[in-house]
Protein backbone atom coordinates (compact mmCIF):
# COMPACT_ATOMS: atom_id res chain seq x y z
CA UNK A 1 0.00 0.00 0.00
CA UNK A 2 1.35 3.44 -0.88
CA UNK A 3 2.07 5.97 1.85
CA UNK A 4 -0.67 8.27 0.51
CA UNK A 5 -3.26 5.50 0.55
CA UNK A 6 -2.32 4.60 4.10
CA UNK A 7 -2.49 8.26 5.17
CA UNK A 8 -5.98 8.41 3.74
CA UNK A 9 -7.03 5.36 5.74
CA UNK A 10 -5.34 6.80 8.82
CA UNK A 11 -7.35 10.01 8.52
CA UNK A 12 -10.53 7.99 8.17
CA UNK A 13 -9.58 5.88 11.19
CA UNK A 14 -9.09 8.99 13.30
CA UNK A 15 -12.50 10.27 12.18
CA UNK A 16 -14.16 6.88 12.71
CA UNK A 17 -15.17 6.68 9.07
CA UNK A 18 -13.61 3.38 7.95
CA UNK A 19 -15.99 0.91 6.36
CA UNK A 20 -15.53 -2.83 6.79
CA UNK A 21 -13.18 -3.31 3.85
CA UNK A 22 -11.12 -0.21 4.66
CA UNK A 23 -10.88 -1.33 8.28
CA UNK A 24 -9.47 -4.68 7.19
CA UNK A 25 -6.93 -2.96 4.90
CA UNK A 26 -5.94 -0.53 7.63
CA UNK A 27 -5.48 -3.29 10.18
CA UNK A 28 -3.49 -5.44 7.75
CA UNK A 29 -1.21 -2.50 6.90
CA UNK A 30 -0.38 -1.87 10.55
CA UNK A 31 0.19 -5.58 11.19
CA UNK A 32 2.49 -6.16 8.22
CA UNK A 33 4.10 -2.86 7.17
CA UNK A 34 6.69 -1.27 9.47
CA UNK A 35 6.49 2.05 7.60
CA UNK A 36 2.72 2.12 8.18
CA UNK A 37 3.29 1.40 11.88
CA UNK A 38 5.76 4.28 12.10
CA UNK A 39 3.25 6.58 10.42
CA UNK A 40 0.46 5.36 12.69
CA UNK A 41 2.46 5.92 15.87
CA UNK A 42 3.60 9.35 14.69
CA UNK A 43 0.05 10.43 13.84
CA UNK A 44 -1.68 9.21 16.98
CA UNK A 45 1.14 10.68 19.03
CA UNK A 46 0.65 14.08 17.37
CA UNK A 47 -3.12 13.78 17.84
CA UNK A 48 -2.69 12.96 21.55
CA UNK A 49 -0.23 15.81 22.04
CA UNK A 50 -2.48 18.27 20.22
CA UNK A 51 -5.25 17.21 22.56
CA UNK A 52 -2.99 17.79 25.55
CA UNK A 53 -1.71 21.17 24.39
CA UNK A 54 -5.27 22.22 23.58
CA UNK A 55 -6.51 21.17 27.01
CA UNK A 56 -3.74 23.14 28.70
CA UNK A 57 -4.73 26.27 26.80
CA UNK A 58 -1.53 26.56 24.79
CA UNK A 59 -3.40 27.38 21.60
CA UNK A 60 -5.02 30.44 23.13
CA UNK A 61 -2.07 32.55 22.01
CA UNK A 62 -2.40 31.11 18.53
CA UNK A 63 -6.04 32.13 18.49
CA UNK A 64 -5.20 35.68 19.47
CA UNK A 65 -2.46 35.97 16.89
CA UNK A 66 -4.73 34.47 14.26
CA UNK A 67 -6.89 37.59 14.20
CA UNK A 68 -7.09 38.94 10.65
CA UNK A 69 -4.78 41.85 9.82
CA UNK A 70 -5.78 44.48 7.31
CA UNK A 71 -4.89 47.99 6.36
CA UNK A 72 -7.23 50.78 5.34
CA UNK A 73 -6.03 53.28 2.78
CA UNK A 74 -7.98 56.40 1.91
CA UNK A 75 -5.68 57.35 -0.91
CA UNK A 76 -7.42 57.92 -4.19
CA UNK A 77 -10.84 58.50 -2.62
CA UNK A 78 -12.81 61.70 -3.20
CA UNK A 79 -13.86 63.91 -0.29
CA UNK A 80 -17.41 62.52 -0.15
CA UNK A 81 -16.11 58.96 -0.37
CA UNK A 82 -13.76 59.67 2.56
CA UNK A 83 -16.74 61.14 4.46
CA UNK A 84 -18.76 57.99 3.80
CA UNK A 85 -15.89 55.77 5.02
CA UNK A 86 -15.54 57.90 8.15
CA UNK A 87 -19.30 57.63 8.83
CA UNK A 88 -19.21 53.85 8.38
CA UNK A 89 -16.22 53.58 10.70
CA UNK A 90 -17.95 55.78 13.28
CA UNK A 91 -21.04 53.58 13.20
CA UNK A 92 -18.92 50.42 13.38
CA UNK A 93 -16.83 51.69 16.30
CA UNK A 94 -19.95 52.86 18.19
CA UNK A 95 -21.54 49.46 17.57
CA UNK A 96 -18.47 47.67 18.89
CA UNK A 97 -18.36 49.84 22.01
CA UNK A 98 -22.03 49.08 22.70
CA UNK A 99 -21.46 45.40 21.94
CA UNK A 100 -18.50 45.09 24.30
CA UNK A 101 -20.27 47.10 27.00
CA UNK A 102 -23.26 44.76 26.88
CA UNK A 103 -21.23 41.61 26.42
CA UNK A 104 -20.60 39.24 29.31
CA UNK A 105 -17.43 40.17 31.16
CA UNK A 106 -14.67 37.73 30.22
CA UNK A 107 -13.32 37.82 33.78
CA UNK A 108 -16.57 36.26 34.99
CA UNK A 109 -15.56 33.00 36.69
CA UNK A 110 -18.91 31.86 38.00
CA UNK A 111 -22.38 32.61 39.23
CA UNK A 112 -24.20 31.95 42.48
CA UNK A 113 -27.16 29.75 41.63
CA UNK A 114 -28.63 29.49 45.10
CA UNK A 115 -27.82 30.29 48.72
CA UNK A 116 -26.74 33.32 50.65
CA UNK A 117 -23.29 34.40 49.49
CA UNK A 118 -21.04 37.42 49.93
CA UNK A 119 -18.83 38.09 46.91
CA UNK A 120 -15.93 40.41 47.73
CA UNK A 121 -17.74 41.35 50.92
CA UNK A 122 -20.98 42.31 49.22
CA UNK A 123 -24.14 40.42 48.46
CA UNK A 124 -23.96 39.40 44.81
CA UNK A 125 -24.19 36.55 42.36
CA UNK A 126 -21.33 37.27 39.94
CA UNK A 127 -17.93 35.82 40.76
CA UNK A 128 -14.95 37.24 38.93
CA UNK A 129 -11.32 36.18 38.72
CA UNK A 130 -9.80 36.77 42.16
CA UNK A 131 -13.17 37.22 43.91
CA UNK A 132 -13.41 36.13 47.52
CA UNK A 133 -16.55 34.16 48.28
CA UNK A 134 -18.15 33.57 51.68
CA UNK A 135 -21.21 31.45 52.34
CA UNK A 136 -23.20 33.37 54.93
CA UNK A 137 -26.49 31.48 55.06
CA UNK A 138 -27.30 28.43 57.09
CA UNK A 139 -27.90 26.22 54.08
CA UNK A 140 -25.43 25.20 51.34
CA UNK A 141 -24.87 27.52 48.39
CA UNK A 142 -24.57 26.29 44.82
CA UNK A 143 -22.08 27.98 42.52
CA UNK A 144 -21.78 27.29 38.81
CA UNK A 145 -18.25 27.96 37.58
CA UNK A 146 -17.50 29.23 34.09
CA UNK A 147 -15.79 25.96 33.08
CA UNK A 148 -19.02 24.04 33.74
CA UNK A 149 -18.02 22.75 37.17
CA UNK A 150 -20.45 22.98 40.10
CA UNK A 151 -19.51 23.66 43.72
CA UNK A 152 -22.02 23.01 46.50
CA UNK A 153 -20.50 24.84 49.45
CA UNK A 154 -21.23 24.37 53.14
CA UNK A 155 -22.29 27.30 55.32
CA UNK A 156 -19.30 29.28 56.58
CA UNK A 157 -17.08 28.31 53.65
CA UNK A 158 -14.60 30.93 52.49
CA UNK A 159 -12.67 30.71 49.24
CA UNK A 160 -11.06 32.71 46.47
CA UNK A 161 -11.70 31.84 42.82
CA UNK A 162 -8.29 32.42 41.26
CA UNK A 163 -9.03 31.28 37.69
CA UNK A 164 -6.44 29.89 35.30
CA UNK A 165 -2.84 29.27 36.36
CA UNK A 166 -0.52 27.92 33.64
CA UNK A 167 -1.74 24.38 32.82
CA UNK A 168 -4.51 24.44 35.41
CA UNK A 169 -7.80 25.77 34.07
CA UNK A 170 -9.28 26.63 37.46
CA UNK A 171 -7.59 27.19 40.81
CA UNK A 172 -9.64 27.68 43.96
CA UNK A 173 -8.01 28.77 47.23
CA UNK A 174 -10.10 27.27 50.02
CA UNK A 175 -9.57 29.20 53.26
CA UNK A 176 -12.16 27.45 55.40
CA UNK A 177 -15.20 25.24 55.27
CA UNK A 178 -15.71 22.95 52.35
CA UNK A 179 -18.19 21.36 50.05
CA UNK A 180 -18.76 19.08 47.16
CA UNK A 181 -17.10 19.77 43.84
CA UNK A 182 -18.30 18.28 40.60
CA UNK A 183 -15.70 19.05 38.00
CA UNK A 184 -16.75 19.19 34.39
CA UNK A 185 -15.21 16.93 31.81
CA UNK A 186 -12.04 17.91 29.95
CA UNK A 187 -10.37 21.30 29.50
CA UNK A 188 -7.36 20.66 31.72
CA UNK A 189 -6.74 20.24 35.43
CA UNK A 190 -8.82 21.68 38.24
CA UNK A 191 -7.08 22.38 41.54
CA UNK A 192 -8.18 23.30 45.04
CA UNK A 193 -5.47 24.76 47.27
CA UNK A 194 -5.76 24.79 51.06
CA UNK A 195 -3.35 25.51 53.89
CA UNK A 196 -3.09 21.74 54.48
CA UNK A 197 -2.42 20.78 50.87
CA UNK A 198 -3.97 20.75 47.47
CA UNK A 199 -6.35 18.55 45.50
CA UNK A 200 -5.83 18.15 41.78
CA UNK A 201 -8.21 16.43 39.41
CA UNK A 202 -6.22 13.98 37.30
CA UNK A 203 -9.06 12.55 35.33
CA UNK A 204 -12.32 13.76 33.98
CA UNK A 205 -14.82 14.01 36.75
CA UNK A 206 -14.90 13.73 40.50
CA UNK A 207 -16.85 14.69 43.53
CA UNK A 208 -14.93 15.55 46.67
CA UNK A 209 -15.76 16.75 50.15
CA UNK A 210 -13.27 19.03 51.83
CA UNK A 211 -12.88 20.27 55.34
CA UNK A 212 -10.43 23.04 56.10
CA UNK A 213 -8.56 24.72 57.74
CA UNK A 214 -6.41 22.50 59.91
CA UNK A 215 -6.95 19.35 57.93
CA UNK A 216 -7.93 18.45 54.44
CA UNK A 217 -10.31 15.54 53.99
CA UNK A 218 -11.13 14.33 50.51
CA UNK A 219 -13.64 11.68 49.63
CA UNK A 220 -13.94 10.74 45.97
CA UNK A 221 -17.19 9.40 44.60
CA UNK A 222 -16.29 9.43 40.91
CA UNK A 223 -13.07 9.85 38.93
CA UNK A 224 -9.57 10.33 40.29
CA UNK A 225 -7.94 13.12 42.28
CA UNK A 226 -4.44 13.74 43.57
CA UNK A 227 -3.69 15.13 47.04
CA UNK A 228 -0.42 16.99 47.57
CA UNK A 229 0.85 18.61 50.72
CA UNK A 230 3.06 18.35 53.78
CA UNK A 231 5.53 16.21 51.90
CA UNK A 232 2.87 13.67 50.95
CA UNK A 233 1.24 12.92 47.66
CA UNK A 234 -1.52 10.40 47.09
CA UNK A 235 -3.90 9.53 44.33
CA UNK A 236 -7.46 8.62 45.20
CA UNK A 237 -9.90 6.77 43.01
CA UNK A 238 -13.67 6.41 43.25
CA UNK A 239 -14.81 5.21 46.68
CA UNK A 240 -11.53 6.17 48.34
CA UNK A 241 -10.83 8.91 50.85
CA UNK A 242 -7.72 10.49 52.26
CA UNK A 243 -6.57 13.17 54.69
CA UNK A 244 -3.74 15.63 54.94
CA UNK A 245 -3.00 17.49 58.14
CA UNK A 246 -5.17 16.26 60.99
CA UNK A 247 -7.39 13.24 61.47
CA UNK A 248 -10.84 13.21 59.94
CA UNK A 249 -12.55 13.16 63.33
CA UNK A 250 -10.69 16.20 64.65
CA UNK A 251 -12.85 18.89 66.27
CA UNK A 252 -14.31 21.54 64.02
CA UNK A 253 -12.63 24.95 64.14
CA UNK A 254 -13.90 27.14 67.00
CA UNK A 255 -16.99 29.10 66.12
CA UNK A 256 -18.18 26.54 63.60
CA UNK A 257 -21.18 24.62 64.88
CA UNK A 258 -21.73 21.03 63.84
CA UNK A 259 -25.30 21.07 62.61
CA UNK A 260 -27.72 18.53 64.02
CA UNK A 261 -29.53 16.89 61.17
CA UNK A 262 -32.64 14.85 61.84
CA UNK A 263 -35.41 13.77 59.55
CA UNK A 264 -38.86 12.40 60.10
CA UNK A 265 -42.48 13.39 60.26
CA UNK A 266 -43.53 16.40 62.28
CA UNK A 267 -46.21 15.47 64.76
CA UNK A 268 -47.48 17.75 67.52
CA UNK A 269 -46.67 21.43 67.03
CA UNK A 270 -46.77 23.78 69.96
CA UNK A 271 -46.88 27.21 68.34
CA UNK A 272 -46.91 28.99 71.70
CA UNK A 273 -43.60 27.48 72.80
CA UNK A 274 -42.23 27.16 69.24
CA UNK A 275 -41.69 23.44 69.70
CA UNK A 276 -42.68 20.32 67.83
CA UNK A 277 -42.42 16.55 68.04
CA UNK A 278 -40.54 14.78 65.29
CA UNK A 279 -41.33 11.12 64.63
CA UNK A 280 -38.05 9.78 63.29
CA UNK A 281 -37.65 6.93 60.86
CA UNK A 282 -36.45 4.49 63.57
CA UNK A 283 -39.76 4.89 65.41
CA UNK A 284 -38.42 7.20 68.14
CA UNK A 285 -39.85 10.64 68.86
CA UNK A 286 -37.90 13.76 69.78
CA UNK A 287 -39.04 17.20 70.84
CA UNK A 288 -37.30 20.16 69.22
CA UNK A 289 -37.59 23.76 70.27
CA UNK A 290 -36.57 26.73 68.15
CA UNK A 291 -34.38 29.32 69.77
CA UNK A 292 -33.44 27.12 72.73
CA UNK A 293 -29.92 27.04 74.12
CA UNK A 294 -27.72 23.99 73.93
CA UNK A 295 -24.60 24.78 75.90
CA UNK A 296 -23.31 28.06 74.45
CA UNK A 297 -24.87 27.42 71.12
CA UNK A 298 -28.23 28.80 70.09
CA UNK A 299 -30.24 26.25 68.21
CA UNK A 300 -32.25 27.21 65.20
CA UNK A 301 -34.59 24.85 63.46
CA UNK A 302 -34.44 24.48 59.70
CA UNK A 303 -37.07 22.70 57.70
CA UNK A 304 -36.05 21.68 54.21
CA UNK A 305 -33.03 23.96 54.46
CA UNK A 306 -35.05 27.04 55.47
CA UNK A 307 -35.04 28.61 58.88
CA UNK A 308 -38.33 27.79 60.57
CA UNK A 309 -40.25 30.58 62.20
Amino acid at each position, binding site marked *: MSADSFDELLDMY*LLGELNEQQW*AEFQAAIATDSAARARF*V*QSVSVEAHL*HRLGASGEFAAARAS*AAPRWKLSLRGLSRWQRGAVAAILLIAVTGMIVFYALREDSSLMGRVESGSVLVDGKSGDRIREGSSVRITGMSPAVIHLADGSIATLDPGTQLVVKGREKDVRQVIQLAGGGGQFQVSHGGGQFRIDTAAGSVTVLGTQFTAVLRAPGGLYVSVTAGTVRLDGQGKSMTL*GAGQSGTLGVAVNSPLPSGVAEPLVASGTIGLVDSKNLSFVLAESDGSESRYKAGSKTGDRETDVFLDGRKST
Partner: protein
Amino acid sequence: MEPSTLARQFVQHRDLLYGYVFALTRDHNLAEDILQDVGVSILTEAARGTMPEHFLAWARGLARNRVADHYRRAASRRQHEMSFEQFADAVDLAFTEHSRTLEDNHQQLQFLRECVGGLTARVRRMIHLRYHDRLSLDEIASSLAWTSGAIKVALSRARRVLADCVGRKLRREEAT
Protein backbone atom coordinates in the same frame (compact mmCIF):
# COMPACT_ATOMS: atom_id res chain seq x y z
CA MET B 1 10.57 -1.11 43.07
CA GLU B 2 8.88 1.21 45.59
CA PRO B 3 5.16 1.92 45.16
CA SER B 4 6.00 5.62 44.78
CA THR B 5 8.33 4.69 41.91
CA LEU B 6 5.41 3.12 40.06
CA ALA B 7 3.28 6.22 40.63
CA ARG B 8 6.12 8.43 39.42
CA GLN B 9 6.59 6.30 36.32
CA PHE B 10 2.89 6.51 35.60
CA VAL B 11 2.99 10.30 35.78
CA GLN B 12 6.18 10.35 33.69
CA HIS B 13 4.71 8.19 30.94
CA ARG B 14 1.13 9.42 31.16
CA ASP B 15 1.20 11.05 27.71
CA LEU B 16 2.67 7.96 26.07
CA LEU B 17 0.03 5.74 27.67
CA TYR B 18 -2.64 8.23 26.65
CA GLY B 19 -1.40 8.01 23.06
CA TYR B 20 -1.58 4.21 23.23
CA VAL B 21 -5.12 4.20 24.61
CA PHE B 22 -6.13 6.81 22.05
CA ALA B 23 -4.61 4.67 19.28
CA LEU B 24 -6.89 1.83 20.37
CA THR B 25 -10.02 3.90 20.90
CA ARG B 26 -9.58 7.04 18.71
CA ASP B 27 -11.86 8.79 21.20
CA HIS B 28 -10.32 11.43 23.44
CA ASN B 29 -13.02 11.35 26.11
CA LEU B 30 -12.98 7.58 26.31
CA ALA B 31 -9.16 7.54 26.33
CA GLU B 32 -9.13 9.94 29.28
CA ASP B 33 -11.62 7.84 31.21
CA ILE B 34 -9.72 4.63 30.54
CA LEU B 35 -6.37 6.17 31.44
CA GLN B 36 -7.87 7.30 34.70
CA ASP B 37 -8.86 3.70 35.48
CA VAL B 38 -5.38 2.55 34.45
CA GLY B 39 -3.87 5.05 36.92
CA VAL B 40 -6.00 3.68 39.74
CA SER B 41 -5.07 0.10 38.75
CA ILE B 42 -1.37 0.96 38.74
CA LEU B 43 -1.59 2.49 42.20
CA THR B 44 -3.55 -0.50 43.48
CA GLU B 45 -0.95 -2.86 42.06
CA ALA B 46 1.79 -0.73 43.58
CA ALA B 47 0.15 -1.01 46.99
CA ARG B 48 0.07 -4.80 46.54
CA GLY B 49 3.80 -4.77 45.93
CA THR B 50 3.71 -5.55 42.21
CA MET B 51 7.12 -4.83 40.69
CA PRO B 52 7.05 -5.03 36.89
CA GLU B 53 10.37 -5.48 35.16
CA HIS B 54 9.38 -3.31 32.20
CA PHE B 55 6.99 -0.64 33.40
CA LEU B 56 5.76 0.56 30.00
CA ALA B 57 5.03 -2.89 28.60
CA TRP B 58 3.23 -3.79 31.85
CA ALA B 59 1.24 -0.53 31.93
CA ARG B 60 0.31 -0.95 28.25
CA GLY B 61 -0.99 -4.41 29.10
CA LEU B 62 -3.19 -2.96 31.86
CA ALA B 63 -4.45 -0.27 29.46
CA ARG B 64 -5.15 -2.82 26.75
CA ASN B 65 -7.21 -4.91 29.17
CA ARG B 66 -9.22 -1.87 30.20
CA VAL B 67 -9.96 -1.02 26.55
CA ALA B 68 -10.93 -4.63 25.86
CA ASP B 69 -13.24 -4.56 28.91
CA HIS B 70 -14.85 -1.42 27.57
CA TYR B 71 -15.47 -2.94 24.15
CA ARG B 72 -16.87 -6.09 25.66
CA ARG B 73 -19.38 -3.96 27.54
CA ALA B 74 -20.17 -1.64 24.64
CA ALA B 75 -22.80 -3.38 22.58
CA SER B 76 -22.71 -0.54 20.09
CA ARG B 77 -19.24 -1.45 18.81
CA ARG B 78 -19.47 -2.18 15.11
CA GLN B 79 -19.11 -5.80 14.14
CA HIS B 80 -16.13 -5.33 11.85
CA GLU B 81 -14.19 -3.66 14.63
CA MET B 82 -14.66 -6.60 16.98
CA SER B 83 -11.33 -8.14 16.05
CA PHE B 84 -9.88 -6.04 18.82
CA GLU B 85 -7.18 -8.45 19.94
CA GLN B 86 -5.68 -8.63 16.46
CA PHE B 87 -5.68 -4.84 16.12
CA ALA B 88 -4.31 -4.37 19.63
CA ASP B 89 -1.45 -6.77 18.79
CA ALA B 90 -0.52 -4.59 15.82
CA VAL B 91 -0.75 -1.40 17.91
CA ASP B 92 1.40 -3.04 20.61
CA LEU B 93 4.00 -3.91 18.01
CA ALA B 94 3.97 -0.34 16.67
CA PHE B 95 4.41 1.18 20.14
CA THR B 96 7.13 -1.31 21.06
CA GLU B 97 9.07 -0.60 17.87
CA HIS B 98 8.95 3.15 18.50
CA SER B 99 9.18 3.14 22.29
CA ARG B 100 12.53 4.93 22.35
CA THR B 101 11.23 7.90 20.39
CA LEU B 102 7.92 7.97 22.23
CA GLU B 103 9.54 7.99 25.64
CA ASP B 104 11.06 11.42 25.09
CA ASN B 105 7.70 13.06 25.53
CA HIS B 106 9.05 16.43 26.57
CA GLN B 107 11.03 16.84 23.38
CA GLN B 108 8.12 15.74 21.20
CA LEU B 109 5.84 18.28 22.84
CA GLN B 110 8.43 20.99 22.33
CA PHE B 111 8.84 20.08 18.66
CA LEU B 112 5.07 20.05 18.21
CA ARG B 113 4.80 23.54 19.73
CA GLU B 114 7.42 24.76 17.24
CA CYS B 115 5.66 23.05 14.34
CA VAL B 116 2.25 24.52 15.29
CA GLY B 117 3.95 27.91 15.40
CA GLY B 118 4.93 27.41 11.78
CA LEU B 119 1.35 26.93 10.58
CA THR B 120 -0.61 29.74 9.02
CA ALA B 121 -2.82 31.85 11.28
CA ARG B 122 -6.02 30.35 9.82
CA VAL B 123 -4.87 26.79 10.40
CA ARG B 124 -3.76 27.64 13.94
CA ARG B 125 -7.21 29.06 14.57
CA MET B 126 -8.76 25.84 13.30
CA ILE B 127 -6.45 23.80 15.57
CA HIS B 128 -7.49 25.97 18.49
CA LEU B 129 -11.18 25.41 17.79
CA ARG B 130 -10.66 21.67 17.43
CA TYR B 131 -8.32 20.91 20.33
CA HIS B 132 -8.98 23.70 22.79
CA ASP B 133 -12.67 24.43 22.27
CA ARG B 134 -13.28 20.79 21.25
CA LEU B 135 -15.68 21.76 18.50
CA SER B 136 -16.97 19.25 15.97
CA LEU B 137 -16.08 19.59 12.29
CA ASP B 138 -19.51 21.12 11.62
CA GLU B 139 -19.12 23.62 14.45
CA ILE B 140 -15.66 24.64 13.23
CA ALA B 141 -17.05 25.02 9.71
CA SER B 142 -19.82 27.25 10.99
CA SER B 143 -17.39 29.30 13.08
CA LEU B 144 -14.95 29.87 10.21
CA ALA B 145 -17.59 30.10 7.47
CA TRP B 146 -16.06 27.13 5.64
CA THR B 147 -17.71 23.91 4.55
CA SER B 148 -17.40 20.79 6.74
CA GLY B 149 -15.61 19.03 3.89
CA ALA B 150 -13.03 21.81 3.66
CA ILE B 151 -12.44 21.64 7.42
CA LYS B 152 -11.99 17.87 7.25
CA VAL B 153 -9.42 18.17 4.46
CA ALA B 154 -7.63 21.08 6.15
CA LEU B 155 -7.46 19.28 9.51
CA SER B 156 -6.14 16.09 7.93
CA ARG B 157 -3.54 18.10 6.04
CA ALA B 158 -2.55 19.98 9.20
CA ARG B 159 -2.16 16.74 11.16
CA ARG B 160 -0.04 15.29 8.39
CA VAL B 161 2.12 18.43 8.17
CA LEU B 162 2.60 18.39 11.93
CA ALA B 163 3.44 14.67 12.02
CA ASP B 164 6.01 15.18 9.23
CA CYS B 165 7.45 18.26 10.92
CA VAL B 166 7.82 16.56 14.33
CA GLY B 167 9.25 13.43 12.66
CA ARG B 168 11.83 15.54 10.79
CA LYS B 169 12.91 17.33 13.94
CA LEU B 170 13.19 14.05 15.86
CA ARG B 171 15.32 12.47 13.12
CA ARG B 172 17.53 15.55 12.98
CA GLU B 173 17.93 15.41 16.76
CA GLU B 174 18.82 11.72 16.65
CA ALA B 175 21.42 12.35 13.94
CA THR B 176 23.23 15.00 16.02
